[in-house]
């Protein structure tokens, strides 16, 4: 009996200690895509952030839009900060799934206005570039029209599979539509252009798959994320990149509605979008910083691989247009694919 009481007291005391300790240390759940990107986010943002504020950052993932929606709907939100694609950030905001950001904590004065909205702020930005396997292609293809020129540059083409910003735009650009006339998208014209290479297209759904396709020579050329091509070049694979008409995409960091550690999450966003946070992340990934102050802090060697350097060749995609018309575009897109 006595023993039991003592044991009970010890357990109770241990529990209390656990609870108070948990209380003393604030924490946030950070969710991203896993792999090298999330490793870099941890190194560039989470670790120094914890050192500065004492707020613990728990890494979780991968990002899953369905899960995010389910959490918000059930009211049990486990995630505090989520790295999402920009068109999703706009769509989720419209559906009421996100917390508005507090710009008294997050300083947006130096953030490129393309990469900030009321409900999300850039995580990083990147470009869809035309890249080719130099073992398979002779000459230097440039611009999206080269992608459709299978006579001069023979071989299969790799394109991004999901109906999201990118493929439609590059087809229209290749067909001679000027950047300013891209939107609203002329889907019929884009599909007609894509028809000319339809039998040569191999669709990729993820970064690793895209690298595998190009490195193995399965495709000779395609539309790729610039960071993934940088990684291939780092590995010594003969990959050429054309920055002409590079299509700018970005990831946003958002806070799901009802996030349990909202205040800590805002502070985290303030750090991750700071000049230092953005520069550190860029150094690790060759993805571009969304903070304009960061550019000068990045080493010169790396600049050659970053979209920032090719600003004059950039074509900005209209994410808001996609957030609104995405489902309709997808319908015609699927129809075209299965034809």
């Amino acid at each position, binding site marked *: 009996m006595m023993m039991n009481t003592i044991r009970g007291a010890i357990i109770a005391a241990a529990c209390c200690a656990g609870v108070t300790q948990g209380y003393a240390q604030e924490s946030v759940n950070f969710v991203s895509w896993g792999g090298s990107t999330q490793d870099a986010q941890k190194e560039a943002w989470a670790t120094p952030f914890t050192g500065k504020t004492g707020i613990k950052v728990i890494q979780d993932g991968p990002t*899953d*839009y*369905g899960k995010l*929606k389910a959490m918000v709907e059930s009211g049990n939100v486990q995630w505090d900060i989520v790295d999402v694609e920009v068109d*999703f950030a706009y*769509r*989720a905001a419209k*559906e009421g799934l996100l917390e508005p950001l507090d710009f008294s904590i997050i300083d947006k004065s130096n953030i490129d206005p393309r990469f900030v909205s009321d409900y999300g702020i850039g995580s990083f930005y990147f470009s869809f570039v035309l890249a080719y396997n130099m073992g398979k292609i002779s000459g230097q293809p440039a611009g999206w029209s080269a992608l459709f020129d299978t006579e001069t540059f023979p071989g*299969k083409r790799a394109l991004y*599979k*999901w*109906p*999201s910003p990118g493929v439609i735009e590059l087809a229209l650009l290749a067909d001679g539509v000027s950047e300013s006339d891209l939107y609203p998208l002329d889907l019929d014209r884009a599909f007609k252009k894509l028809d000319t290479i339809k039998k040569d297209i*191999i*669709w990729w*759904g993820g970064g690793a*798959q895209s690298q*595998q396709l190009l490195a*193995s*020579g*399965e495709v000779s050329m395609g539309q790729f994320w610039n960071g993934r091509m940088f990684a291939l070049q780092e590995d010594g694979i003969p990959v050429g990149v054309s920055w002409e008409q590079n299509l700018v995409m970005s990831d946003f960091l958002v806070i799901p509605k009802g996030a349990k550690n909202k205040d800590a999450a805002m502070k985290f966003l303030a750090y991750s979008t700071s000049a230092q946070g953005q520069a550190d992340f860029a150094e690790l990934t060759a993805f571009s910083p969304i903070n304009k102050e960061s550019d000068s802090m990045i080493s010169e060697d790396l600049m050659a691989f970053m979209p920032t350097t090719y600003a004059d060749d950039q074509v900005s995609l209209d994410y808001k247009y996609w957030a609104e018309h*995405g*489902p309709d575009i*997808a*319908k015609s897109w*699927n*129809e075209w*694919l*299965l034809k």
Partner: protein
Amino acid sequence: MYMTLSRKKWREGTLLIPILLFLCVFFLIPLAGLLLRSLTEPSFGLQNFEQLLATSTYVQVLSNTFLVATLVTVISLVLGFPLAWCITLMPNGWGRWLLGVILLSMWTSLLARTYSWLVLLQTSGVINKTLMAIGIIDEPITMVHNLTGVIIGMSYIMIPFVVLPLQACMSAIDPMVLQAASICGAPARTVFFRIFLPLCKPGLFSGALMVFVMSLGYYVTPALLGGVENMMLPEFIVQQIQTFLNWGLASASAALLIILTIVMFYFYLKVQTDSPVSTNTGA
């Protein structure tokens, strides 16, 4: 006598209550909730089903799904049948080793196995390079990112699910029965078609059913080895759920798949009256 037996059965039945409760809370209720969405999102009504069945693209996705599942089932049966027979006939011990190899392949990560097929089958892959080196072909054959790739990859993954029930069924067959048929003068063909095959029927049917139903819901392998022009329903559902948050349409697709599967299961039960999970020989 009858009373005690039924009471005993009933008492054994009560042991099932925990698992039934578990299934109800963690499987049936969420499933029902998901399916209800097909009727309530974005507004109450049948609009999601209407959209699914009225759009030729979606109907094609659905028919693709059934086409692939059928092909995979047939191929798994054709390849799995001799394999199961082989395992059954092997001298003691060896059969178990072979079965072990098959089980081992099932325990390996699905993603790793699918990527391995990609490495083997792609135009610059091992198979094409070998064939070209030997001089059998001049140009690489396209075996992946199309229907062929999906069928090869999925059949490979599904074969164990045919072999296991079939082998259990075959090993229960009394070899004396086959011998008796031969002694009575039946040629090998007749013994196979009139004696052996009918005795294997329960194993064949349960294996086929399992493979068919699993193939209907397969996602990873078709997504990696297939081309988009043969999109299957699971991929369509993922697209609607993940990219567009259009859960109504996705739930409707899932519901449609479940309903069609249940209808087919009903016909299956009509044809095959033995329990689909039992491995008795039906004799």
